[in-house]
């Protein structure tokens, strides 16, 4: 029996500064409306694709989404950053409304886009349980009847009458999740940010989510961490550029996702935008291989380089680079030394040594930071590269396909 049915769902967003031109656009919209014409800004809406720049000021974050979920299913929603996952979640949570289309729901729906929404630092754990519970839709009596259970699950009994601002971040998250876990809605919508806290607690959370579905309730889980999704979900939905790419068994959908993202991208350039980046901007990113070869393999060094155009002198800048696996797990982050800027172009190169990464596909995300604190430019998944296996040269086999790194270490025998 379907408990959620999404029909022809569209969501439009405005790009750039929202206030600019709103009054005139609103007026123009209204003029069209009273004359019975369609919205003039719907036509010029571009496709949700980050790689293409569009001239239009409006973009479809979701475009013609159709699917349904049956009772008791655990649906994993996957897709690259900006594919529309969060937008879909927000509409399901009623935080924002769709532009067109509708979602039909059977049963009470509760969504956790964040743990501890509405927690007040000055209030005690006890007071916050009641406040947070009520925000999530429980009545006072419901919370009272589950209070002891919630406290026991969170494991912060001793501090329950202490203001939560004195809590460690772990305790805070545990208490917040404990409240959410005792909601008991028919449909639960969860964002991946929940996967925080220590490993022990994470296990407890995943366990709780599985319990929820075994009780016949339905769970929607959004993540770009394939490992977590694979573990938890039985049905998958793959979103791409705001559209449904495919839906089916989780196994199948992950396979689709990985093959879709197989294309490597070894050079990326971005248009100069002095308005957005008055200080400095990464204009080009590329990967160069050793000895002019054109493949990277486990036993070769390679370089990841960034060209920065600097518009202002005497500012302290540095770069922070993150490498992610094809399944969305972070492999590592590395920070460059800081440098003081001089007008002109500067190239920063990071050498990735051989025998570090395992074979597979990896994404590079780069952040340009000022004064070691303020991010001035973030480019997600700017480059994609593949490291090839070299085991034909070695006397070692075995299944290491899910490993992220393959370091060569010294053994003393």
């Amino acid at each position, binding site marked *: 029996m379907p408990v959620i049915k999404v029909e022809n769902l569209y969501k439009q967003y405005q790009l750039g500064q929202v206030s600019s031109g709103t009054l005139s656009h609103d007026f123009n919209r209204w003029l069209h409306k009273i004359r019975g014409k369609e919205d003039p800004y719907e036509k010029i809406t571009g496709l949700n694709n980050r790689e293409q720049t569009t001239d239009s000021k409006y973009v479809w974050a979701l475009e013609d989404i159709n699917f349904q979920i049956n009772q008791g299913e655990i649906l994993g929603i996957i897709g690259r950053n900006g594919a529309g996952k969060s937008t879909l979640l927000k509409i399901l949570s009623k935080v924002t409304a*769709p532009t067109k289309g509708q979602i039909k729901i059977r049963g009470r729906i509760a*969504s956790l886009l964040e743990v501890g929404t509405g927690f007040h630092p*000055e209030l005690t754990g006890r007071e916050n349980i009641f406040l947070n519970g*009520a925000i999530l839709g429980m009545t006072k009596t419901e919370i009272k009847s589950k209070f002891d259970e919630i406290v026991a699950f969170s494991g912060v009994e001793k501090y329950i009458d202490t203001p939560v601002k004195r809590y460690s971040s772990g305790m805070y998250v545990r208490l917040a999740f404990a409240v959410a876990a005792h909601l008991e809605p028919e449909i639960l919508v969860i964002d991946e940010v929940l996967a925080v806290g220590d490993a022990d607690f994470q296990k407890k959370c995943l366990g709780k989510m599985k319990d929820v579905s075994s009780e016949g309730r339905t769970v929607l889980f959004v993540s770009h961490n394939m490992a977590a999704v694979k573990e938890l979900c039985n049905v998958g939905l793959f979103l791409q550029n705001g559209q449904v790419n495919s839906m089916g068994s989780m196994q199948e959908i992950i396979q689709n996702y990985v093959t879709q993202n197989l294309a490597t991208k070894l050079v990326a350039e971005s248009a100069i935008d002095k308005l957005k980046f008055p200080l400095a901007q990464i204009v080009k990113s590329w990967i160069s291989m050793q000895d002019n070869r054109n493949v990277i393999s486990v036993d070769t060094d390679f370089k990841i380089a960034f060209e920065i155009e600097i518009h202002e002198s005497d500012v302290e800048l540095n770069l922070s680079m993150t490498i992610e696996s094809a399944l969305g797990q972070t492999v590592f982050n590395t920070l460059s030394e800081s440098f003081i800027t001089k007008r002109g172009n500067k190239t920063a190169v990071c050498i990735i040594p051989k025998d570090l990464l395992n074979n597979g596909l990896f994404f590079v995300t780069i952040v340009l930071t000022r004064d070691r604190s303020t991010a001035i430019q973030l480019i997600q998944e700017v480059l994609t590269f593949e490291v090839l296996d070299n085991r034909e040269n070695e006397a070692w086999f075995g299944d290491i396909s899910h490993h992220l790194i393959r370091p060569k270490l010294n053994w003393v025998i």
Partner: protein
Amino acid sequence: MCNELAQTLVKNMSKDENWSEIIRPKRSWLDINLLELWRYRDLIMLFVKRDFVSVYKQTVLGPLWLFIQPLFTTITFYFVFSKIAKIPTDNVDPILFYLSGITLWNYFSDCFSKTSNTFVANAGIFGKVYFPRLATPISIVISNLIKLGIQIILFAVIAMYRVYFHDAQININGTILLLPVLILLMAVMGLGLGIIFSALTTKYRDLSFLLTFGIQLLMYATPIIYPLSFTSGKLHQILSYNPITPIIENFRYAFFGIGYLDIAGLIYSAVFSTIVLVLGVLIFNRVEKNFMDTV
């Protein structure tokens, strides 16, 4: 017959039309779910408690600030308007005159200004979870009501003190029974205006600047620091159009016996408040669904 009924029942079930909720684009202007708001009454009371408990935590004087604010304003007004500007107060003890005005005025202005940034101030929580958004401004009006209650007690205490030690004249009459109505009118007007502005400031932030000094100007256009009888002619006329004027004037009549019982004025205020509240709820309801995209 029975069989037929059973068949239709089964048919209806299999058509799966029995959805409990449908999420759609914009709702119509009149689709307001007050029942849902009632279901969330516990949340409203918890918000009230939160506002009350959290504000005075880590302050040395704590809730004493509730007394200090109106008292200091009164003393300032006393020196500036009574001693220096020599504006008469209709033979009422000036301290009591100002304190009565400020106590009521503050309730209105707090309701108005604090509900007017509902969306902007709560963007964080509104962006993460759904509950009837009206719960927030309503809780603000209620928590300010408690504050007003405490300040009215302060006013009563100061009044007794002035009567015993400084021979101040007060003349309490039956109109005092109207006090709950006066407060309700203030609350409704403040809430209504506040939510109208809250809906507009999500898109046009400029309004919040306008509002801060707008409320201040409005105070001078209300007989707070002077009695209505002090004005005459055209000015008097304009001031009586201010829907807050009858509320303040009636309160002072009830307490000091100055002026007269102005029932027509109160009806005018009541009509104004109701229109503002209905309009406010309609606009608020319209904006709450999509404000996250513009805030």
